[in-house]
């Protein structure tokens, strides 16, 4: 498969009043043509900053201190803002989290959706509006010809997210970055939006980077999953690898804190104790060690490298080191391993 996007050793720092925050500390990932990559992690783990670095849409106090963002082998970080303008909304576009605030309140939605077309293509206004109407119909806005002249406040939250999606796909981008596109919506609308994204991916053949902290949503949409913690990836692999053969204790914690059909109604949901580290002074060893019941001496001292689990499945935990003692994951994870074997995989 073709790698259309590859991020290598990305570091992002934020200059704040209290000092420099090392928000992203060496992230590597790639995106294959046509696939959906989900990046999961808790709030503040750096998911949004990672994908915003791709488009260089960072706050003014942020600097990308190191790394490469290769789009078809071309390093986007070397491009000027003007050159990036030609890529944004054209080759790579973005769907934002909050549909209530993402649309310009004083511009008709027709004009807002047509804007990327008029910026990037030499088309007449008439043709752009015609295309806009088609795309609005595609994302499920009823009676688009008339509604194009309406303003954002005349639409519901779910409809507004459909419009935000229409803006992102109107110029048929190669890569669609969806930054928690369902977080601000209620559950029934979430499902509709996920279905819409899947349908659109098939129709226009775009690759998707999907950011979320909701593992349930991941299972519904992703081909591959990357788990992020404190500015680094800790584990990545296929959806089955992450859900049924997780290796990193942080992934165990995430999966364990998600209710399943077997969850006893009376029981309390599990949670991961503690809080993420302060990235003003990132820990020397594994950032997750203080919250990790399975942590060893070496976790405090040295950051674990990625160990290969299977062909496309990697996890950064010392537990996978050949010399590490064998540990037993939580019971719920063992149950998942059983399912993995039924699926035909080789669980550890």
């Amino acid at each position: 498969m073709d790698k259309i996007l590859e991020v290598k050793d990305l570091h992002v720092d934020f200059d704040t009043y209290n000092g420099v925050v090392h928000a992203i500390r060496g992230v590597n990932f790639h995106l294959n043509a046509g696939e959906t990559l989900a990046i999961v992690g808790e709030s503040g783990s750096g998911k949004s900053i990672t994908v915003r670095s791709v488009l260089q849409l960072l706050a003014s106090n942020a600097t990308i201190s190191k790394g490469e963002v290769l789009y078809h082998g071309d390093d986007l970080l070397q491009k000027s803002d003007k050159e990036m303008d030609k890529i944004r909304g054209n080759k790579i576009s973005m769907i934002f989290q909050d549909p209530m605030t993402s649309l310009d309140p004083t511009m008709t939605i027709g004009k807002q959706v047509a804007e990327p077309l008029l910026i990037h293509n030499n088309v007449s206004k008439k043709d752009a509006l015609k295309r806009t109407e088609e795309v609005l119909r595609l994302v499920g806005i009823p009676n688009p010809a008339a509604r194009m002249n309406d303003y954002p406040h005349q639409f519901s939250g779910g409809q507004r997210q459909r419009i935000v999606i229409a803006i992102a796909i109107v110029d048929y981008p190669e890569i669609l970055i969806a930054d928690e596109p369902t977080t601000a919506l209620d559950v029934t609308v979430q499902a509709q939006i996920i279905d819409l994204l899947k349908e659109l991916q098939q129709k226009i053949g775009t690759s998707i980077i999907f950011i979320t902290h909701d593992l349930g949503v991941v299972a519904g949409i992703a081909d591959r999953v990357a788990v992020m913690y404190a500015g680094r990836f800790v584990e990545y692999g296929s959806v089955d690898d992450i859900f049924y053969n997780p290796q990193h204790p942080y992934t165990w914690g995430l999966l364990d804190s998600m209710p399943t059909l077997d969850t006893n109604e009376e029981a309390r949901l599990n949670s991961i104790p503690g809080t993420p580290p302060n990235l003003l002074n990132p820990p020397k060893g594994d950032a997750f060690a203080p919250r990790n019941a399975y942590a060893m001496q070496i976790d405090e001292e040295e950051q674990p490298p990625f160990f290969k689990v299977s062909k496309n499945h990697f996890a950064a935990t010392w537990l996978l080191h050949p010399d590490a003692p064998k540990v037993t994951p939580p019971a719920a994870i063992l149950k998942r391993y059983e399912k993995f074997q039924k699926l035909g995989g080789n669980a550890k």
Partner: protein
Amino acid sequence: MTKYILKRIFYLFITLFIIASLTFFLMKMLPGTPFSNQNRMSPDQLKIVKAQYGLDQSVGVQYVRYMVGLLHGNLGTSFQFNNEPVTSLIGQRLAPSMQIGAQAMIVGTVLGILLGAVAAIRKNTWADTLATFVSILGLSIPSFVLAVLLQFYLAYKWRIFPVALWDNFQSSILPTLALAALPLGTVARFMRTEMVDVMSSDYIELAKSKGNSNWKVVTKHALRNSLIPVVTIIGPMAVSVMTGSMVVENIFSIPGIGEQFVKSITTNDYPTIMGLTIFYSFLLIIVYLIVDILYGLIDPRIRLGNGGKE
């Protein structure tokens, strides 16, 4: 929209009626009479003059008479300014006042918007500091102080402009600048605060993510959204420009109505006070009406008449 404007015009007349009534009685409470400094008149002569102007009647009767006249568009005759009808008095003096008032409002608002926008876009740089400094000066220096300073330096020392003259456009520049400082400062402050807010909003980020250049993000998305609250202060600003112009007209000897207003109050020139008060009120109500219509044009959420939704 038409229905809305008709409704507002109806309210305008009610407001004017209330203002006219209140002013009438307040004015009658002022000490002295229009003729209190005419010592040479005998009591009999005074009586005749008073009868001629209807001032011998009770206040109630005078009030009814005045209001009936007002309904016919008759603002009465001035006691002081050569017995001229008040309407023609206002007519003659209107042009200069309107000219410097409008010039000051336009110069102040346009420059204020530019200054505020530059400050917001170049936030926390020397350009921002300079813009803030200028707008605070504009806000804090009273127009009459600025008028005198401009007069001293630009007119007296460097002889670029006339000191106090009213003939061509050049002579209107100094009074315009003196009056424009306040709206400029006010608008710049509002614009900066609002635009900083707008520039960090989600829809600006989305506009940038579409591939808009920074310039287009500002001109197509940020500017219009930042203007909404600025429109609000145009009304109150118009008031301060009008009151400011009374003093500034005096300093630059401009034959405007501001100067006349002050004189009419000190001499108890009842018809002129009434006429000018009603005229100023009318002007202000119209400004507020225009502001409300502008609102609807800039912000679709406040479209008038249909409550926003179709």
